């Protein structure tokens, strides 16, 4: 086997190279030749091809994502911004929080278990590489038609993978989403969010500083998994009897990841590390080029020192391997022994593979032969940038014009009751406990709230009760009707879900899942969604701290609904003041905060009952959303609420049913004046929450609403003598829904489909 050396590249400038098979365009290949002043070696070509991929370089999205950096709200809580492994936010008392959501969509469709498992592994390493201890995970998931047999394969595999990896890692799974829509049939979405906490002084960055410092690769050995496109290159350079195609989905080992977490935190807290980077997409290529590019600018790597799982790997494959559970640290020579001792304590293998220098070049040698000599910035940061064409598609007019006005609505008390029972059991509204009970939500002992509560809440400091709440949301049907508004509505819902639990919204992360950027209609959706999100974040004062873009969620010509999943992080000074969703005591008053309008476009009712998607999404007033949050947070702090719950998919019917099922105590409700029962129950107007107020707090609560000029409507009171929801004013009649019956309907759907 001959290795393609730098000297070979100089002496054979005209040798043809498989750049197209590696996914590089002709002009991209030419620009690499321009940067190097010669043809790249096969190793260099491999590095550029993965680092300049859409996944690593954000080449199609960069021009739009810049808005998150230019439309930055005044908010002095940002400690580390976009561009690092994850953003870091100050939550007070010397504590900082880092959180980020990433996609693992494509691998999870090919191999659901490992795809979902390694998605968690990757996001967790992003968090520990900032110096934080991971404290919770969440999984926003999207699946196709629940009745399609392939959905069963995908869902059960993904859920097992999340549980199998996450449970073994010892991180509580505190929330997320499970949404079904046929648009995800060939492109399920597996997004994974991780939250980490640290003291300010423990923040670390991915920088290779200090000339002469060692670059240490530690964790799992490097194997042939996750090489993907590079197998093309391998087939060009290997002899006929060499290894064949490598699997392109990585395989996870959560036990090794757990050791890696403990080992990494110990070396960081021991002051043994100057810079640190996880190995994810593009493996050693990414870690070394990014570390060098962020630091002194030069690094030399001895590739043959890398510990291998498979001795037959070529240098190109070693550079590209996406084997999981690996990290790269920059360590002063005097601290190498101490670093190695910590690794040994945790049974983690480690080896010095390189050295920081001031050459301005990333150079790699293998068995004494120079195989890479590149400017690291050109690999890591100065990739191609595309201004892809985008245009509002004509079919948007048709879609927005065909609203839900003509859909048949229930027109009697009996029909309203039947609709309520049916809606309670739709796959999107039904209880998700069959899934979430497969995840450990208790480990670490700091989980204050977990699904099905509005947000997941974690206690950060046991002494002071300081905590954080996180929610992820996106109604993609709204984004399909209007991507600009849809992204803002997703932010508003996530923001509200955090506030409902009593936490003050502070910062935003996102996972932007879209179809092919080469389709101008998709690119328009993306541009609209990013602009909508950036505008809303600016107005609401919540900066975007980082995120992830996933394109090409498309089968043939059919793209998924634009799905900008928005995660909001909030802070609560004392978790004892959190507001749960279950009402508690007899006689408490039930209120709706906000205005209910006739807004059914994109609603779960239109989707589930009529399979309809058309019209314009609900109107959104960001200022009102912020006022609502102020009331929810103040009310929690002052003890005005025994319970609160956001109104979103499924409307007030779903909100009150969930509260009743969670508490087991009955409620008497009345359709308010000026609204018909149907609109009251199933409209999905934004900026609303149901709150439950003890009678002795009633006056103070109403005074608060009045001082903010925020609309509030009393809809009933809790009645512990009944085990049902009694609703009067339904076409002149009273309907009664037994909580036990609702619960049976809600809980049987997922086991019936997937159990």
């Amino acid at each position, binding site marked *: 086997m001959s290795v393609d050396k730098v000297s070979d590249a100089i002496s054979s400038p005209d040798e043809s190279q498989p750049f197209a098979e590696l996914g590089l365009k002709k002009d991209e290949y030419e620009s690499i030749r321009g940067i190097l002043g010669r043809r790249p070696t096969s190793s260099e070509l491999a590095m550029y091809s993965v680092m300049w991929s859409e996944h690593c370089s954000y080449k199609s999205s960069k021009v739009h994502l810049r808005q998150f950096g230019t439309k930055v709200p005044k908010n002095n809580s940002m400690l580390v911004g976009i561009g690092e492994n994850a953003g870091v936010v100050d939550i007070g008392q010397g504590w900082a929080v880092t959180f980020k959501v990433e996609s693992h969509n494509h691998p999870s469709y090919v191999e659901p278990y490992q795809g979902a498992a390694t998605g968690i592994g990757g996001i967790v390493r992003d968090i520990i590489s900032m110096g934080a201890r991971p404290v919770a995970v969440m999984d926003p998931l999207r699946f196709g038609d629940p009745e399609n047999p392939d959905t069963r394969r995908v869902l059960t595999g993904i859920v097992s993978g999340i549980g199998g990896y996450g449970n073994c890692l010892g991180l509580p799974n505190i929330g997320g989403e499970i949404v079904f829509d046929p648009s995800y049939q060939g492109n399920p979405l597996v997004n994974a969010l991780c939250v980490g906490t640290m003291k300010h002084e423990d923040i670390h960055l991915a920088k290779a500083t200090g000339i002469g410092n060692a670059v240490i690769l530690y964790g799992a050995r490097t194997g042939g998994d996750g090489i993907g496109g590079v197998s093309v290159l391998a087939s060009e350079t290997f002899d006929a009897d060499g290894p064949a195609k490598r699997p392109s989905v990585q395989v996870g080992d*959560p036990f090794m990841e*757990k050791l890696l977490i403990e080992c990494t935190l110990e070396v960081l807290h021991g002051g043994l590390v100057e810079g640190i980077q996880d190995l994810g997409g593009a493996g050693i290529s990414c870690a070394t080029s990014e570390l060098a590019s962020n630091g002194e600018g030069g690094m030399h790597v001895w590739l043959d020192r890398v510990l291998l799982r498979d001795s037959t790997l070529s240098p190109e494959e070693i550079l590209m391997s996406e084997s999981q559970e690996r990290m790269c640290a920059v360590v002063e020579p005097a601290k190498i022994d101490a670093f190695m001792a910590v690794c040994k*304590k*945790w049974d983690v293998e480690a080896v010095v593979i390189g050295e920081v220098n001031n050459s301005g070049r990333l150079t790699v040698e293998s068995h004494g032969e120079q195989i890479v000599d590149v400017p690291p910035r050109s690999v890591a940061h100065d990739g191609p940038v595309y201004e892809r064409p985008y245009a509002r598609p004509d079919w948007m007019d048709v879609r927005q014009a065909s609203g839900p006005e003509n859909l048949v609505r229930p027109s009697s008390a009996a029909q309203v009751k039947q609709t309520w029972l049916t809606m309670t059991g739709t796959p999107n509204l039904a209880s998700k406990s069959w899934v979430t*009970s497969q995840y450990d939500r*208790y*480990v670490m*002992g700091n989980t*204050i709230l977990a699904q099905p509560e509005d947000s997941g809440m974690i206690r950060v400091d046991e002494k002071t009760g300081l905590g954080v709440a996180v929610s992820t949301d996106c109604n993609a049907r709204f984004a399909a009707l209007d991507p600009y508004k849809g992204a803002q509505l997703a932010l508003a819902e996530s923001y509200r879900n955090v506030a409902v639990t009593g936490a003050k919204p502070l910062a935003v992360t996102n996972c932007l899942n879209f179809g092919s950027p080469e389709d101008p209609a998709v690119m328009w959706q993306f541009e609209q969604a990013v602009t909508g999100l950036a505008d809303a974040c600016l107005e609401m004062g919540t900066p975007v701290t980082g995120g992830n873009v996933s394109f090409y969620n498309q089968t043939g010509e059919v793209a998924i609904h634009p799905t900008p999943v928005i995660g909001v992080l909030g802070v609560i000074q004392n978790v004892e003041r959190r507001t749960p969703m279950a009402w508690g005591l007899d006689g408490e008053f039930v209120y709706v905060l906000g205005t209910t309008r006739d807004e059914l476009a994109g609603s779960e009712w239109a989707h589930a009952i009529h399979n309809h998607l058309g019209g314009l999404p609900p109107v959104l007033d960001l200022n009102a959303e912020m006022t609502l949050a102020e009331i929810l947070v103040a009310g929690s702090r002052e003890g005005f609420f025994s319970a609160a719950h956001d109104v979103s998919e499924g409307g007030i019917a779903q909100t009150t049913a969930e509260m009743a099922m969670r508490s087991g105590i009955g409620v008497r409700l009345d359709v308010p004046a000026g609204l018909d029962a149907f609109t009251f129950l199933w409209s999905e107007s934004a900026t609303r929450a149901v709150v439950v107020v003890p009678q002795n707090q009633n006056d103070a609560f109403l005074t608060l609403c009045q001082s903010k000029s925020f609309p509030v409507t009393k809809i009933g009171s809790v009645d512990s003598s009944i085990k049902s929801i009694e609703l009067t004013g339904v076409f002149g009649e009273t309907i009664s829904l037994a909580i036990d019956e609702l619960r049976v309907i809600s809980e049987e759907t997922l086991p019936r489909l997937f159990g």
Partner: protein
Amino acid sequence: MTPRVGVITFPGSLDDKDAARAVRIAGADSVALWHADADLHSVDAVVLPGGFSYGDYLRCGAIAKFAPVMEKLVDAANGGLPILGICNGFQVLTESHLLPGALTRNDHLHFICRDQKLRIENNTSAWTSDFNVGDEILIPLKNGEGGYVADEKTLDELEGEGRVIARYLEINPNGSRRDIAGITNSRGNVVGIMPHPEHAVETLTGPTTDGLGFFSSLLKSLVNDGKVSA
């Protein structure tokens, strides 16, 4: 003197910090013990926490049994030291033959995390003396391999000697024989339980504080045995 309770951390232990917190809330000092350190550091009792020791890629607990600290622990157990194995800790105790039987894959084949009702069946062990027989408690359960199995003779012996310390109520969440959630050895100092009392020690983070009873039982029995002063 405040009792000192050791919590062993194996590679892959996950609920070790939770167990230590429960020990502290109950009023004892927690002492971190390390799998590779063959020394119990003169603790008054030991908790084997939940998790996936060594990844549990072989039978759960099968590798942990060979950890250097375990040799000392087995000797100490035979000498009467109070030992509580929770979940993976229970699995380690059966693999080490300090308790009979084995824990197998849940009968429904899924990992399950739920708030589980139990009935206390024995209040004479070192870890259950602060309960009354017949007490119903609610504590978290979370396992993938929690189905307790043993041969009929062993099960009859456990029942006959009153060594079943707790049974699942309402739902048997994992297919355990005779709804067994936890057992003790004949001396009553070694207890294994599949659900997690250490996750039910604070109202903020657990469904109840019923789990505290296991730790207050320990403190009570240490006092009674004259190991520590009241």
